[in-house]
């Protein structure tokens, strides 16, 4: 059973398009995250949701909007995609907020 699953695994699209990435966790965790990993493997948090409330929104362009319909889901919608958005996006979850995260396998986004 996949603990944190995200779809799609690969996403190739044109500049200016709008796309969504979906994430679901079946661990019963109360906190979910979106991370961006750049081409140099550097990981940076984008969003964190605890019990469906946004805790943090680092300096992410407002073209990125997280949506959490319930505690088990955290989707990422991206408007007006830019070349610089190309990266691997990881969803993660945790019970509580002590740093023990479970990660999905990532979505590789390529903007052409």
């Amino acid at each position, binding site marked *: 059973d996949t603990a944190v699953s995200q779809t799609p695994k690969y996403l190739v699209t044109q500049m200016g398009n709008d796309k969504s990435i979906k994430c679901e966790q079946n661990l019963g965790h109360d906190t979910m995250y979106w991370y961006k990993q750049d081409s140099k493997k550097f*990981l940076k948090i984008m969003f964190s949701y605890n019990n469906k409330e946004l805790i*943090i929104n680092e300096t992410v362009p407002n073209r990125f909007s997280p949506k959490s319909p319930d505690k088990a889901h955290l989707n990422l919608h991206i408007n007006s995609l830019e070349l610089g958005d190309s990266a691997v996006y990881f969803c993660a979850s945790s019970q509580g907020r*002590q*740093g*023990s*995260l479970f990660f999905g396998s*990532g979505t590789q986004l390529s903007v052409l």
Partner: protein
Amino acid sequence: AQSVTQPDIHITVSEGASLELRCNYSYGATPYLFWYVQSPGQGLQLLLKYFSGDTLVQGIKGFEAEFKRSQSSFNLRKPSVHWSDAAEYFCAVVPRGGQGGSEKLVFGKGTKLTVNP
């Protein structure tokens, strides 16, 4: 400035050899400390963590890490490396105190491990 540093970008070891990956942090108070591993094409997996207590912590897959307060270090070790250990390894910290928790998790830049047969 607060930071977590992994001095080695890339390490190559032979299968069966011992391994040590370095991690140093710069925080006012000892943060919560973690090691994650990322296999090619996969997400990150937690290997081990240190919150308090015994400074030598055991993790999964035969890994251990030792917290040394005097050196502000949390190095990861394995006595005998297997080919399947080839991956990217990330040290991470969560600052103690103040508000917030794992949303403050900060990752090092990673160390890529190559294992030669």
